[in-house]
């Protein structure tokens, strides 16, 4: 009990004192996971919408693969990204193993199927006649897609939350491709594991609380938008 209390006090102390180390770790987490989410949003929504709106041979297989990807284990992603980018790997010439870029790539790979799957389902859930209606009103194909995306913005925001939540709390891939290098690739999750290993439980609890607060703040803001639009 003492330990938990100490952890909370320490967390409070670290936050209000703007501890430079904690600030930089938090900021790095936000930067890496935010960028990864942004990439996954771009790729995931475009592919998700394209798959939802087109009929082609093997569509069900593709959807099954995307849905499986939603549960892609981060360590598997970490392993494959590592093999691809280490010095002797096919992309070794990029020299990005143990850099934040490698972490962004791995996290984007994790988040993309999540965003893709949710946006696919969202578009498919719209009334089928809506498309015909929009087209018959004289909209171009691109305009039609835009209207559909706007119509499904609520589940799309949920997709952003799921994607971001998935990668900011992820550790398996981050520690494998990032290496937990101080001031460079040390993020909240990897730092928490390391401090636990060092026996600094109070600091570990503090980092965990900051991670929770960060995830909560982002989700709170997004939920605000989502719910407000619904009640409109």
């Amino acid at each position, binding site marked *: 009990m003492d330990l938990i209390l100490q952890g909370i006090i320490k967390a409070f102390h670290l936050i209000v004192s703007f501890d430079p180390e904690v600030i930089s770790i938090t900021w790095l987490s*936000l*930067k*890496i996971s*935010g*960028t990864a*989410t*942004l990439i996954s949003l771009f790729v995931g929504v475009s592919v998700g919408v394209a798959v939802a709106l087109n009929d082609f041979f093997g569509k069900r297989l593709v959807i099954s693969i995307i849905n499986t990807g939603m549960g892609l284990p981060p360590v598997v992603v970490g392993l494959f990204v590592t093999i691809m980018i*280490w*010095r*002797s790997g096919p992309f*070794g010439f990029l*020299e990005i*193993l*143990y*850099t*934040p*870029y490698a972490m*962004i790539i791995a996290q984007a790979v994790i988040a993309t199927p999540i965003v893709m799957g949710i946006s696919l389902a969202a578009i498919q859930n719209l009334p089928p006649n809506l498309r015909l209606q929009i087209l018959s009103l004289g909209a171009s194909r691109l305009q039609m897609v835009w209207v559909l995306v706007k119509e499904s913005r609520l589940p799309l925001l949920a997709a952003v939350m799921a994607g971001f939540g998935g990668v900011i709390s992820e550790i398996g891939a981050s520690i494998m491709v990032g*290496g*937990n*290098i*101080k001031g*460079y690739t040390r993020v909240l999750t990897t730092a928490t594991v*390391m401090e*636990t*290993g*060092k*026996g600094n*439980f109070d600091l570990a609890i503090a980092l965990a609380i900051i991670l929770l607060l960060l995830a909560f703040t982002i989700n709170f*803001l*997004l939920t*605000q*938008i989502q719910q*407000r*639009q619904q009640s*409109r």
Partner: protein
Amino acid sequence: MFRKSKIIITLLIATFLFAFGASTVFDAQAAPKQKNIILTTTTSTQDSGLLDVLIPIFEKKTGYFVKTIAVGSGQAMAMGQKGEADVMLVHSPEAEKKFVEEGYGVNRRLIMHNDFIIVGPADDPAKIKRLKSSAEALKKIAHAGALFVSRGDNSGTHAKEKILWKQAEIAPTGQKWYQETGLGMGQTLNVAAEKKGYTLADRGTYLALKKNIPLEILVEGDAILLNIYHVMEVNRKMWPKVNAAGARAFADFMVSRQAQEIIGKFGVDKFGSPLFFPDAGKKVEDLGK
């Protein structure tokens, strides 16, 4: 209402975009390509905090950027063997010798030592306290069927543990009282503490964690328990992509008088005694005397 949420969305996107823009500054401190050195090392050097003191001094002095990957000694050398590391700071002498003989490593140099200890619960069910021989202690643990928690990760500590079991003429793998964590030293100590088991630990990590774990030192001082750290550079002839100049600079720094003095003083303020003893230039045979 709609406008307000639009502002929030715009703000969020702006933040991410800014973050993305800022991310191009990631490499600012490591601009020239061969400035990066990949150092693979054991968890004990990181968990004890020693590298957090040494590396910033080295980076400031030379302009190199050190990427420290803290894993077990086994994995650290496996990465060197594939050319994925430039320099290694490890403590698994038998495996290191083999590594150099096979041509993967060059310039193996002695850095420092401390010692391993056998720790366990205060009530000591196997009655090993103050035994002089660590092999004897393991025999007693095995006969009592008391829980022994092993690293099980091919680390230097695990390698030492296997040597001790061999000396005790016991094959622990698969026994009910023998559990392997596959984790670092700090986490393994936590597991042992939680399950009231015995384990072999390096003194540095144990001292660093002591305030939180109820384990006691039961066996220490046996000559075989010496824990010796060497630095090795990955052989450039095997892997041309290796940053050989950086590796050499780091290894040279580790044996320099400045680094050796820091190693000798490290931990004195916190624990009352140093965690490591600097040994650059000495011979392995003379250690611990």
